């Protein structure tokens, strides 16, 4: 009985402290794994760009140390869109808006820095805005036109 309690206790300690001891990948079977805070894409995670007096549609996107964009989707109508990217964390990023006739990018954005990309898009469609440094780790947002 006592041994069983010890065994269960040991397993519980292993699972509870999986992340603390064994890093983000966690203990056996992924116990204690460090999971992403946000669901990858949710409906609420999209905003509409706001059209200014000059006709340019603007939206601000925050870049996080979790290697995500908030919001991950910006909706706009065909025309000129200006996206402002604010690095809310400490990790550097460089955001490019691809497939919009070339790939204009913000250049390097250190923690706290902000950068702006202006594109003119006429064809409706989905235009990804990846972080050039972290795209393969899933740091890709989408500009939806139309």
């Amino acid at each position: 009985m006592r041994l069983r309690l010890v065994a269960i206790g040991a397993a519980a300690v292993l699972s509870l402290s999986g992340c603390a001891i064994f890093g983000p990948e966690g203990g056996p079977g992924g116990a204690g794994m460090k999971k992403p805070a946000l669901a990858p894409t949710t409906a609420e995670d999209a905003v509409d760009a706001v059209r200014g007096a000059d006709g340019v549609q603007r939206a601000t996107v925050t870049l996080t140390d979790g290697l995500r964009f908030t919001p991950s989707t910006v909706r706009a109508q065909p025309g000129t869109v200006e996206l402002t990217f604010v690095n809310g964390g400490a990790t550097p990023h460089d955001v490019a808006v691809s497939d919009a006739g070339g790939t204009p990018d913000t250049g390097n954005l250190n923690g706290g820095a902000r950068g702006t990309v202006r594109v003119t898009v006429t064809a409706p469609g989905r235009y990804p805005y990846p972080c050039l440094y972290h795209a393969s780790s899933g740091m890709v947002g989408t500009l939806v036109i139309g």
Partner: protein
Amino acid sequence: MSVLRVGVAVLLGAVFALLGAAPAAAHTVGGVGATNFRTTLSALGPAVSGVTLKVIENGSRLEMTNTTGADVTVRGYADEPYAKIGPDGIFVNDNSPATYLNANRFGSVKVPAGVNPENPAKWRKVGDGSVFRWHDHRIHWMAKTMPAAVAAAPTEHHQISTWTVVIDAGGRELSASGTLEWVPGPDPGWWFLAAGGAVLLVLGAALLPRPARWLGTAAAAMVVIDLVHSVGIGLITAGTVPERIGAVIGSDFTQLLIWLIGGLGAALLLRGHLRAAWLTAVSGLLIGSISGLSDLPALWRSSAPSALPADLNRATVAVALGLGVGLLLALPLVLRRYATARAGNSVAPTGVGVAEVDQPVTTEETDAAVTVASAPTEEPSPEPATGPAEGPSPEPATGPAEGPSPEPAAAPVVAGAAVAGGISRRSAVGLVAAAGVGGLVGAAATISLRDGSSAAPNTNTTGTAVPLSDLGTRIVPFHGTRQAGIVTPTRQQAHAVLAAFDLVEGASRDALRSLLRGWTAAAARLTAGLPLGADDNTAALGLGAASLTVTVGFGPSLFGKAGLAGTDRPAGLAPLPAFPGDELDPARSDGDLGVIIAADDPTVAYHAVRALQGIAKGTATLRWQATGFARARGAAGDEGATLRNLMGQVDGTNNPKSTDPDFERRIFVGEDGPDWLRGGSYVVIRRIRMLLDDWDALAVPAQEKVIGRRKDTGAPLHGGTEVTPVDLSARGTDGKLAVAPDAHIRLAAAANNAGAAMLRRGFSYADGLRPDRAPDAGLLFLAWQADPGRGFVPVQQRLANGDALSRFIRHEASALFAVPPGAVEGRYLGQELVEP
């Protein structure tokens, strides 16, 4: 208080201080310890002799070697030149952000202001030689949290992403591409048991007569095993000899302390100085708390930074840890024996001191005759003065990470009982061992059960805990913007039923609509594991969804029927051209409507096709049907391994990955397709019979020449592993092309087909014997692409005109379907086509 005790106390204090200061950082290479992430380089092309690229240190870094006489440039994240390796040495571009970001594994740096990749390169020399290594953040997972798919199912294999690094060499643009995968590791239960066994061995040794020699042997074994483990890490570390030696020692000198203290302790113990058990205990504590703990994940992760085979590396971790913990826990046992011996010796003065402790050590040093004389003092004393509450507990560990317990648990009670009842020492050892094994089994079982709640009800009496119901309860979401069954589920199901239907003569548009509506509703229920109600034939009653997917497509012949104009047929849906060597059977080809049904259970799959047939009654009739199979879930040790076809060849090594940057464009119909097909795909189905008798009569080297890959490993014939990029220009020692001019992989290579790519997701079939007694078996080839004219058609034209494999296969049936996008809830499949 003796000098020795004070010394040991100081040493222990230092160790604990070190414990607090040094987090578990002992054994990593390039900042990466054991991990389930796997970075693979799958291609570097076109090949340039003298330029090689390697993934090193578990995916932490890339290593480029350039032995040509010209500069080779690696491009950074914004396509700018980042590093230059050439005859003058190695340079980095101070105007490339990569120069700063690539300094460490997680890119947690600040890029200096003014660094702009668009500015001209500002080269700075960083070294000589022809080898450059860098942390390329395109090839590994950068976030500190796990990918969502991995977090949802950590014990499953996942494709995380694909990566491309562009290299300029001699005026040519080389493209290195590869994948990042999540490969779950093994169940660590047995390794925990091995570690526990080592603990018990040491504890048992401490209870034997003359324990010093046994404990010394155990300590020496621990040091040697830990050395082997560390050398394994040093061997895989890239860099100079001092860097490699540094990797063997570890970043915080823990390893060095373990070997010095443990080695000294072992030497003294082997000479009979039982006092040295203190030293080996400290060494054991270090292994148990720092080095062993940080290496522990190697037991349950698929790869670890080590040149040793994975299981040998796991064995070194488990056994070194077990011996270390055993040596630590053995100390109180040894001390207890002295206390016991002293209590039984009336001549001894009061108080536990060094002099008393030394007495039995002297005994150990003497020859056999003296041992006999001193034997009575070694027997357990009936004197209860040394009750179980005294001193640290010698409780057998239930887990490798456990330190000394202040609680007097089972083992002292057992020992006490043994003493009181006059049971022999040998029996006591057995009892302790038995109790320990019970605890370990309990711990291992608890750990393995914690993996999944579904495992518990299936635990059977034989002790295996295979999560059987897991297979049945898996659901692949039906509703969505893409139809399931194309890229989902990631892991292809084990059974398939392919079928094509023809509309009955004069079927109306309304009839087609209600058929599609009915199929959509039925598919939504069946794929969720729900029965169809009164109309259900109960064939799948009691079965779960078993990852069922139902994928529906439209054939070329549908256009011109049910009120759909022939001119509305998209260009991509033009009937496939005839290929040389085709032996197509029209009765088993084509069709107005196609369905691809797949599940991990054959009955679930067949039940679904029967249900669709019932719904179609009166509107469409079954034209042909075929069943296929793939690898069953849980059947392979490596769930992520490439499937093998019935010829025994790995098939699908170079399949595009769902995370390729251009995957979407190559597999799914984009803006250039008709509205109703946007987000959909085209599937080509070919029934390819294999002339297995002819093939199997061929010697293996001849078979390998036909394919261009080794049969066993799947490696290209010029060497390497399955994922080694194919070098079509490589030549063997005989000067001939390593991959023959007519080899299958040469003709099928994307490089030879204007980059044509398709996602192959086929199933094997075996339908008994043909009239000539030859097996009617082969491959139900399924290929998905955005445009057959840029996918299957050009590749097949090339293959049909010279593939050495053509002699061993026959294309017997063929079909092409345009597969519309998925149905979101409230809509039905193909609604955009039939309700424009």
